[in-house]
């Protein structure tokens, strides 16, 4: 085991909606600079777990620390270092890609080279169009560029490869590699263990909000069918 004060440590994290425990006693560790793959069927709590780790949701029991800092109590400072990429892109449909990125960068006082970021995700030519006209895959790429505005130390990816064509997947993979090379810690969810295994040495399976399997990603394929 690595030093618990470095990286992401989740201890018995639980969250409910109404009377239903969507997450129950989830414990896991992701060493700093490493990546973890979250597997599990729809409704197993993967997205809720990511939202708890992103400090969008307050855990009702247990909690998590990042580099020894408790997530929820210190959320106001930690949020600068955490990026969440999810289905909710948090983009303004009325603004163009470029306007979106520069508006978000300014609101967070992040130094970002907007044109370079757009080029990085392959949207340099469409930067002036309102994002309302974008396809799901293009919105995904733009959301990725938005996450890059932050240079996150903790990157949370909710099904990063969905809605992307093969080219987009390759691009997403490159960007993930790049962020990992910078020493970021990462958690990603996916339904395709094969896609995530490239980045994540370890995997965890959630079923009904509980951890039902953990092990090396290479063995995850075997367990994919039991969902």
């Amino acid at each position, binding site marked *: 085991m690595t030093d618990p004060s470095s990286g992401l440590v989740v201890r018995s994290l639980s969250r409910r909606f109404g009377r239903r425990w969507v997450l129950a006693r989830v414990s896991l560790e992701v060493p700093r600079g490493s990546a973890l793959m979250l597997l599990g069927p729809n409704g197993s709590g993967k997205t809720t777990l990511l939202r708890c780790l992103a400090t969008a949701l307050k855990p009702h029991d247990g909690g998590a620390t990042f580099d020894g800092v408790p997530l929820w109590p210190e959320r106001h400072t930690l949020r600068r270092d955490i990026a969440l990429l999810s289905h909710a892109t948090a983009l*303004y449909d009325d603004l163009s890609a470029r306007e979106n990125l520069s508006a978000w960068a300014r*609101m*967070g006082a992040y130094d970002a080279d907007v044109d370079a970021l757009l080029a990085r995700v392959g949207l340099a030519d469409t930067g002036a169009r309102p994002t309302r006209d974008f396809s799901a895959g293009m919105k995904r790429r733009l959301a990725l560029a938005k996450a890059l505005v932050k240079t996150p130390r903790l990157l949370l990816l909710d099904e990063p490869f969905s809605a992307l064509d093969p080219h987009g997947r390759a691009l997403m993979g490159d960007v993930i590699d790049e962020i990992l090379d910078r020493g970021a810690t990462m958690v990603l969810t996916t339904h395709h263990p094969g896609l995530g295994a490239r980045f994540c040495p370890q995997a965890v399976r959630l079923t009904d909000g509980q951890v039902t399997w953990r092990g090396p990603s290479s063995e995850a394929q075997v367990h994919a069918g039991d969902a």
Partner: protein
Amino acid sequence: MSWLWQVPAVVAKELLVEWRERSRVSGLFFYSFALLLMVAFAMPNTKMLADIAGGALWLGLLLASTRSLDQSFKVELENGALEGLVLWPVDPLALYYGKAIANTLVLLLVAAAIVPLVIVLYHPEIKGDPWQLVGILVLGSAALAAPGTLVAALTVQARGSSALLPMLLFPLVVPVVLASARATMLLFDGDLMGQVDDWMMLLLAFDLVHWSLDGLLFTRIVDEG
């Protein structure tokens, strides 16, 4: 006070979104215009119109404000931007004041468009100081926007928000409508006893209460998890 530097960025973002969706703002304007016409038709005779000009103006602005406030938060919910802002992180106070300032400016824009219309359609005599009218419009718009931004944040996420917003907001802004309409009417009629200043002081007091209190309450709504 580290959130203060974020306020201009939020205002800029709000105004940019409004500018991209200018059809929405012009919709507000036509909405108020239609209301002014309807009020005129509903009156027994056109001689009354000059007397009620100030009231009709503020009625138009009040109704326009409910629509623009609702819109200003619907945009945030479309792609989960509200949560995105909190996680970005944009301080909830900066978010509140940014949105409230932008909403004030949008209301002032609508006001700038319908004041000439009121003057043309209702032909009130303007005996008072026109610059005072600017002051009333600024104070009154700010007084509608401050509680309005908070209430819209509350209602837009609840079911059936379009009916709930006026239901919660109108009782809150009774003093605003009262004071702004009175002040405007006095201004049109000629302010013999200097009461306009009193009404403006009331508006100012209302602004101070809500611009200081509502931001704190907004923080509690947005950052709950």
